[in-house]
């Protein structure tokens, strides 16, 4: 969680400096992202959304790749071999039926694994959310769907997103058990999602977790949340900071002290700086690179367009 917070703040700084593009900050979501990911095993699959930094870091996705993507290069979406991480979905809720399909495949292949999908509260209004969850219920797929209910979808408050009393109860429309947990309590999220993952691995069907949290920052760096929400509300949630809460818990257990904090913080900073350096050292896309991955084999017409582009660049002296 400390690494997530540190990397997130660095991304915001890089964005302001023009070194990283439009960015969707994760502050406030550390507990639900880390808690959702912590119980995953190597054979499980993950279908994340676009605000999932803590999840990426928890499962061992290289931070340098994450930065690379948000700096504006598709190559940053490549999951390392062995990591069953599908690329994050920017189009809202499209990952939900995809995750269900992965679960259907697991059933067909008789694999004992879990498929995790995450989304925000805004995603629950999309048709794809509905269709994906309904399939999961009908086919009893090994899915765990986690909704980070962070109270705001850009400027739309949770209360105007749906008239449902809770997001969790939406699961009942699909014959899926749903639970609401404190999304700023990393252990609560871990427990709820972990239970779902176990159910999935035992082929007992899908489950749904609503993790109540708060988007502390703007929707993205292009957004200005002060236009539509109350500073007092933000302050209230500040006092529920997931990092602070876990620190207090660890302190109570006697496993936290300031030296530990210092070590963790310094390690995080060093890791983040190294990742930034690595990401920035990666080459920008070349003409071949942007053409190479449309089809498995480059069709002649595309080859012609690539040649046209290279000729243009040569003529233009670039």
């Amino acid at each position: 969680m400390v690494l997530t917070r540190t990397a997130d703040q660095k991304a915001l700084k890089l964005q302001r400096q023009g070194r990283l593009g439009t960015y969707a900050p994760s502050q406030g979501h550390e507990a639900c992202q880390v808690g959702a990911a912590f119980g995953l095993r190597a054979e499980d699959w993950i279908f994340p959304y676009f605000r999932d930094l803590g999840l990426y870091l928890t499962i061992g996705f290289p931070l340098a790749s994450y930065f690379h993507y948000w700096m504006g290069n598709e190559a940053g979406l490549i999951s390392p071999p062995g990591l069953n991480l599908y690329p994050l979905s920017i189009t809202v809720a499209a990952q939900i039926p995809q995750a269900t399909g992965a679960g259907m495949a697991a059933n067909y292949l008789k694999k004992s694994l879990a498929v995790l999908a995450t989304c925000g509260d805004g995603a629950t209004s999309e048709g794809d959310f509905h269709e994906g969850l309904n399939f999961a219920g009908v086919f009893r797929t090994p899915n765990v769907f986690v909704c980070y209910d962070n109270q705001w979808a850009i400027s739309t408050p949770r209360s105007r997103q749906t008239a449902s009393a809770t997001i969790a109860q939406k699961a009942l429309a699909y014959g899926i058990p749903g639970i609401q947990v404190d999304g700023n309590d990393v252990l609560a999220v871990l427990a709820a999602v972990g239970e779902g993952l176990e159910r999935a691995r035992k082929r007992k069907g899908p489950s749904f977790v609503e993790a109540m949290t708060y988007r502390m920052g703007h929707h993205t760096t292009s957004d200005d949340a002060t236009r539509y929400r109350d500073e007092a509300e933000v302050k209230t949630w500040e006092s529920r900071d997931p990092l602070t809460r876990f620190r207090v818990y660890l302190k109570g257990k006697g496993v936290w002290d300031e030296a530990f904090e210092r070590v963790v913080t310094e390690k995080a900073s060093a890791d983040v700086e190294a990742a930034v350096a690595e990401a920035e050292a990666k080459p920008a896309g070349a003409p071949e690179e942007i053409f190479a991955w449309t089809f498995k084999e480059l069709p002649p017409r595309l080859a012609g367009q690539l040649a046209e582009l290279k000729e243009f660049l040569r003529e233009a002296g670039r």
Partner: protein
Amino acid sequence: MMLNMVQALNQALEQEMERDPRVVVLGEDVGVDGGVFRVTEGLYGKFGGERVIDTPLAESGIIGAAIGMTALGLRPVAEIQFMGFIYPAFNQILSHAARLRNRTRGRFPAPLTIRAPYGAGLKALEHHSESTEALFCQIPGLTVVVPSSPAEAKGLLLAAIRADDPVLFLEPSRLYRAEKEDVPEILTELPLRKARIIRDGHDLTVVAWGAMIPAALKAAESAAGSGVSAEILDLRTLSPFDEEAVLASVGRTGRALIVHEAPRQCGLGAELAAVIAEKSLLKLEAPILRVSGPDITIPLPKAENLYYVGAERIARGIRRLMEF
């Protein structure tokens, strides 16, 4: 064996499922019912309900699920019951299936096949006669294939399922039971991205696909009676299409007639005409003509014949082109 297109498609599915355990079939009514056109008949009984999957009524869910299946290495064949019902899945097709290879630099391609009957001529209900293939031909990363006979249907469907790219496989419903053809029991796939000349000629080139092929053949026969020799090119793969074959044939004949039943504006005929106009202009002896449906929604059965493109209209196009 003499098979109609439905039987040929059915055989392709069955043989490929026997050969490759990664192939699964999903869609509305594809299982117990065997598909509303019976293309998947018998598969449910043979391969079971976890492999021939009757889904709830949700097109985006079907395509989204098929995409997710590819993550675990499967090769799903998803059926959309009619092309007119595919649009709710448009986002999953355009923004996801077609882009996954590019988005992940090859790490997660999405080798799924989407089958859908398309086209007019069955005198069906609203939305059951759509021919909107061009909408899908502007989607980078998506391969669009249309067969024009039973044997072609079998060979191209095998190729579509085996392709490592997502394929939209459109089946001309008018040809489903129109004619039987000798379809080899053992047939490997036919090549994608390759057009074929199905009739040689030297006066003009007719470029067509799907249900327009038998109609174009008929029109060419009637033109032959007037001494006009029409070459017919079956495009087969609509995107990425075989530009070389188109330009070579038009270069030889000097005249191009493009035929499709879709509306004219922004149909694939426009792209074909544009390519010819850009790359073979000096070889043309006449304007490039298109015979197509008009730019209206296809009418209900009572007036469908006013819309539908058949041999007569193609023959008229040939005459007009030769008279120029």
